[in-house]
């Protein structure tokens, strides 16, 4: 009798153990404070929305088991030293099985050192700088189009609109913006655009008066540059209040955020090389469509998603897909699945370079160029103006003519 009872308890134990909720722990830092706060929060919301939706649907299903997603996150204060400490902590103490990157190329480069040292997979998003993937790595996977490709579409469009334009490059001197600027300048010269001014500024600059005076003195008619949200938004405001008469203005990152509407008239006509816009109508092989994602995001956060949010959500989708394909949460198996990923989500095509020289660099994803325009009621709205396949409106060019012209031009184009 006792033997039967013991057997029964043992069977019950095995059965409940098999049915017990498994968790997969993903670690990452968020810049709750510091200059990267705005963009980092938008990225975090993408992660969070993905986690909540997947957990509500029963978790990630792999190898006959269901894994609930658990996040371990800390505030990195936008500081590399904190990133180094916290990623070490998340891996060694909190036992995170997978990592997402912090926001920004600079912080991601620091996190990558730690994750590679510990042999952990990190999906990077909000981090475009190419160099991080060219230092020899096994477990880094980049969601964003690399920095070297950021300005290609903007410059092609500019050349098509006015080949005699004179371009000023004014970028922040952090690693991402410098990489974009260097590649942009080289490409501009290659396609025959005249570069008349070229200067870098410290990312915490708030007074752009001296630089704008120099841009005006150089007789530049197109302005390309910026960095992240804080300095980009300030540049846009000050270019507007100083009436820098530009026909084309393209800033990195900042105009991609829905917060950019706070600038009012200063936002008008500003273009942004964007990793994703809701109008990018990719047909996903799995996960939500762009419209579904935007709707869920709006409902949860009362704000439209930026491309940082889309990148965050897509990072989750791609990791989930790889775990499902691998049938396990084992690092080597998931890495192998990620290496063979060639999938389209609402974010676009995701395919990673697998060679040793640039492992993890994003090969499949394409940028679009978006521009803030006014709709018929005068409300500011972001439209995709390039490439033609993703276009939702004609570009407003030159922008110094102001909003009144937009409505007339928009009517003409439509």
């Amino acid at each position, binding site marked *: 009798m006792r033997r039967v009872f013991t057997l029964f308890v043992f069977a019950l134990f095995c059965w409940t153990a098999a049915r017990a909720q498994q968790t997969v722990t993903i670690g990452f830092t968020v810049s*709750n*404070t*510091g*200059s990267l*706060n*705005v963009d980092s929060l938008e990225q975090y919301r993408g992660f969070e929305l993905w986690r909540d939706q997947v957990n509500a649907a029963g978790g990630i299903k792999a190898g006959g088991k269901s894994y609930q997603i658990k996040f371990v996150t800390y505030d990195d204060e*936008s500081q590399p030293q904190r990133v180094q400490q916290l990623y070490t902590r998340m891996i060694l103490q909190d036992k995170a099985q997978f990592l997402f990157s912090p926001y920004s190329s600079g912080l991601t480069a620091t996190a990558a050192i730690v994750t590679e040292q510990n042999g952990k997979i990190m999906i990077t998003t909000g981090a475009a700088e190419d160099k991080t993937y060219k230092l020899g790595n096994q477990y880094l996977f980049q969601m964003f189009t690399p920095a070297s490709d950021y300005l290609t579409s903007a410059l092609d469009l500019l050349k098509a609109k006015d080949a005699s334009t004179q371009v000023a490059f004014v970028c922040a*001197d952090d690693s991402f913006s410098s990489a974009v600027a260097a590649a942009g300048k080289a490409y501009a010269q290659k396609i025959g655009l005249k570069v008349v001014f070229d*200067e*870098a*500024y*410290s990312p915490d*600059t*708030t*007074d752009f*008066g*001296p*630089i704008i*005076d*120099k841009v*005006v*003195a150089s007789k530049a008619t197109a302005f390309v540059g910026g960095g992240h949200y*804080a300095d980009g*938004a*300030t540049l846009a*405001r000050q270019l507007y*209040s*100083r*009436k820098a*008469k530009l026909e084309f203005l393209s800033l990195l990152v900042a105009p991609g955020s829905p917060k950019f509407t*706070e600038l*009012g008239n200063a936002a008008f006509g500003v273009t942004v090389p964007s990793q994703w816009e809701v109008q990018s109508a990719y047909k996903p092989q799995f996960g939500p469509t762009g419209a579904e994602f935007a709707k869920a995001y709006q409902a949860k956060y009362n704000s439209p998603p930026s491309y940082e949010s889309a990148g965050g959500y897509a990072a989750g989708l791609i990791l989930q897909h790889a775990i499902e394909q691998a049938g396990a949460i084992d690092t080597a198996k998931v890495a192998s699945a990620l290496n063979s990923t060639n999938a389209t989500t609402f974010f676009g095509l995701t395919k990673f370079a697998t060679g040793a020289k640039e492992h993890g660099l994003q090969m499949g994803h394409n940028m679009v160029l978006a521009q803030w325009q006014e709709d018929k009621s005068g409300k500011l709205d972001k439209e995709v103006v390039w490439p033609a396949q993703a276009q939702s409106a004609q570009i407003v060019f030159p922008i110094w003519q102001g909003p009144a012209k937009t409505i007339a031009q928009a009517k003409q184009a439509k």
Partner: protein
Amino acid sequence: MSGIFASLLDGLLVGCVYGLAAIGLNLIWGVMGVINLTHGAMIALGMFGLYLLFSSLAVNAYILLLPILAAGFAAGIVVYWMAVYRVVGRPALMSLLSTFAVNMMIIGIGTTLWSTSPYNVNFNLPGISLGPYTFTGNHIAAAIAAVILAGALHLFLYYTRFGRAIRAVADNRDAAELMGISSTRVLMVTFGVGSALAVASGGLIATLFPFTILSGGVYQLRSFVVTVLAGLGRPVGALFAGILLGLLEGAVTPFIAISWIPLIEFGLFVVVLVLFPRGLFGRNA
């Protein structure tokens, strides 16, 4: 209009604001020998004060400077009693430490309330254009407001009884006490006035540039450079020293990358310390 003139004019306008930001530090240092490390935090509080008032009341931002001045004065009195009263006349390290402690408290509370995301005051006056260059209305108004406040301080110090008392205490505290002047009250009011000017300069800066609770630090550093350039003894001299610094920046920026500007500023700091230790407008000790 040539680029260099535009740059000099911009430098002049922003130099007025640098000067105003430094006057409070100069006044407190000159009168009571206290190096006030809450100066930067006061500037930041002025920025947030203007932001909060402007967001809740749809009033001209420059009119809002009046309640901000009053609030800054009150805040200065509070800090005086908290951190300064017992360390006046003691070794300089004590006043540095105690004002630094208050500075960290203000920044800590500010970070909790407002995090470190940048804020903006969306108030814009139409600018004036000369050729292809535009000088924003906010810059012009801030420079005018700075000159008015500095002028008001000069009138207060040289044409009122209490101003004379402040100058007496600055000259010789003991002798002033013997003449029947309550030096504690004078020092308290001086600290209040110095803080009020710092807070007002913060409010003006908020109309020009975005800010966080940490933004005061840069202006505090600059105020040290301006104070050393001006010398102690004539606080309004700090306005002229600030203008000089602004003009130097304006003269130099068309020719070099702006990331070299801090090097120029602090190079000037060292040169002035070596060649003009009393500053350009300082009185003999």
